[in-house]
């Protein structure tokens, strides 16, 4: 994980000191641990301990109350043979694979376009960022209302101009599309702000290129600006993937995983197994696997990233 930090530091302006290079007085450790203690206590107690408990629970068959039965690795064995689990994993990957790039590309586009003086710039920027601050529950509620297959404004508008409505709620592909659209809506603003911030680190003449017209503009963008923004992109991708693998509220309220299993995600599936089917042990196994997958993905990505940085 520290590799990302390194990557971020490498694009830092020259003159920024490297951490810890200077000589240190001894005896910093006690103070460090004392200052970290409250955080460590909270993490340990409220996240790591529950994670351990969940891992433990994944070895049992349990409805959450009443007697539980030790089943060893049975839950995991069942998991790997469970078509719905694989479908959820695939859906989650598809969701991440669509939401992350689309919101990044749009966010970068808006950032490049807006990164210059213009009328109402602050307001425009705020409007693009606005959806990001809205809660997942509200986003999902709004999405369900907009994309309601029968009475939603999107389909009513389509019908008003003589087109058939889209089966946002009852067909697999449109349902995933609605989910991705509404997610992108909330994520574009964040990508925009981060890219805007990163553009401060891009030398003015290159940024200028994005603003000038002509044949070379695209070339400069493609071959100079985008590569310079690479660490930012990597960061946004990693963060986006982590978020996507944990997506819950929006799916739970917007599609409930349906139609069929078309939008069932790893976490919504775990939730359904735990609280609807009351198979807490199995749900715990899904959760543990999800956690490990995200952990591994992030680690691999960052390691590769560091490799590239070193080569270049």
């Amino acid at each position, binding site marked *: 994980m520290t590799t990302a930090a390194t990557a971020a530091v490498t694009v830092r302006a020259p003159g920024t000191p490297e951490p810890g290079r200077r000589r240190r007085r001894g005896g910093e450790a006690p103070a460090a641990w004392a200052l970290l203690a409250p955080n460590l206590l909270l993490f340990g107690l409220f996240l790591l301990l529950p994670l351990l408990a969940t891992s433990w629970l994944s070895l049992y068959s349990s409805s959450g109350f009443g007697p539980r039965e030790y089943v060893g690795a049975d839950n995991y064995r069942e998991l790997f043979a469970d078509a719905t689990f694989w479908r959820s994993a695939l859906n989650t990957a598809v969701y991440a694979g669509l939401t992350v790039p689309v919101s990044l590309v749009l966010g970068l586009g808006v950032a490049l376009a807006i990164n210059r003086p213009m009328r109402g710039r602050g307001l425009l920027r705020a409007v693009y960022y606005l959806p990001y601050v809205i809660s997942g529950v509200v986003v999902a509620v709004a999405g369900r209302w907009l994309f309601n297959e029968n009475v939603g404004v999107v389909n009513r508008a389509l*019908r008003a101009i003589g087109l058939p*409505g889209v089966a946002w709620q009852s067909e697999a592909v449109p349902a995933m599309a609605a989910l991705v659209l509404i997610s992108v809506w909330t994520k574009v603003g964040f990508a925009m702000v981060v890219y805007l911030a990163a553009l401060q680190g891009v030398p003015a003449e290159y940024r200028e290129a994005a603003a000038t017209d002509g044949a070379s503009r695209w070339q400069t963008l493609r071959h100079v600006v985008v590569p310079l923004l690479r660490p930012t992109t990597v960061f946004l991708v990693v963060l986006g993937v982590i978020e996507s693998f944990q997506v819950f509220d929006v799916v739970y309220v917007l599609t409930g995983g349906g139609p069929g299993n078309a939008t069932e995600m790893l976490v919504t599936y775990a939730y359904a197994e735990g609280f609807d089917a*009351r198979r807490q042990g199995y749900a715990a196994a899904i959760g543990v696997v999800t956690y490990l997958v995200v952990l591994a993905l992030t680690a691999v990505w960052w390691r590769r990233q560091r490799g590239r940085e070193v080569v270049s």
Partner: protein
Amino acid sequence: MACHRVAGLPAGDHSDPVAPSSGSIPPPSGHGRGLSRRRFLAAASLGTLALTGCGTGFSLARGEGTGSVEGRLSFSLWAGDAELTVFQELADAWTRSSGVPVALNVVPFGELLTGVDAQLAGDRAPDLFRVTYQDIGLYAAGGALLDVTDRLPREVTQGFTDAFRQAVSQDGRLYGVPHHTDTSLVLYDVEAVQAAGLDPPTTLDEAWTWEEFTDAARRLPTRADQFPFAVNWQQAGAYRWLNWVAQNGGRLLDDDLTGPAVDSRAVREALVLTQGFFTEGLVPPTTSTKGSYADELFTTQTIGMVFAGDFLLPTIEPTLAEQGRQYGATFLPRAESAAADLGGNAVVATATSVNPEAAADFLAFLAGDEAQARFCEQAVVLPTRTALIERGLEYALRPDLMELYVEQATTISQDLVEQVTVPQFNAVNTSLVERLESAFLGNADAGEVLDGLADDIEGRLS
């Protein structure tokens, strides 16, 4: 709201926070930061204001909790407006005679059992909670419920009809009271039905057969964004699909309730018929088992007829009145016989309650003739007590329709009740949701769907 007064601070942004810079990070210093300092002060005052102005919020920092504590009953439930009013009234009445206060903890239907599960796991369960007949078996089998067999007076327990006493029993022990029941009817938009020249049956004997019903549905006039009808088998209501099975003389579970019985002509026909509703476009595709609740589409005029429980009348009635629409009701379609779903809810006490006597006393009161009559009349739901069924109730809303619901409820068979109240039924129901969804929307082959269902049932009953 006082704590939001800071919103009045100048928040306009005329400068260019991301104006192009030379690319280096400016040295952090306190100079030239008049604006940021002001903003910083604004932040500080936001915090202070929020803390003082909203300190009122913290005067309540701790609630009474839902955990079972001595000298009080806590009762977790979901409730519509009409239900909540009468629950409160009855709880107050009981408190007056017993001296024990009752804290009602209302939670949205979809979240109640998640909370109860967590509370049971955390040993913080309430004294009492409301639960559907389909879910009660799970809690009873898990040892979470108070065995009230010997705690309730005989006149109370003997007052329930056999089917409902059965619904809250496991291995001959009683784990709660059957508080009320519901069942479904077909509600129809009077104007739409008249336009189609239909004359919906008014007695149970004349109820539409499957064929008559389907023909009637086909005749309902629809625009591009409208459908003839929708059935209420969504989510936890998936078990209502079993009405069609029972009407055709079929069963989901075998006679000793230990395995599937879906490999039969009766079940296959029921599936083919209901699958046809979707393929023929008679019902909105959004009303499959994982879809959205059917009744909402009736109030938005997307459908002309809806299968709906009596408990929905308090919601539907004012909405349609506001729109100036008339609606009526007719019986569920029938095949070999009529059959209706076991709706409604039980109220149960938890095994960990520290007030078992009070809890049992409250249950006895709540399910007694007088309190049940009051609840059913006000919340527009059906009774479970023989005396009330025989004498009839004076419903607060649409007594004309409630008469039909009462009649339809006589077709809730002991057979079906047994099947939907097995301890594992809630797991079976989640399988129904999945399998029916694949038949309705995925257009899966009926035989394969039933095979899958049989496999699931076998796995979940064992």
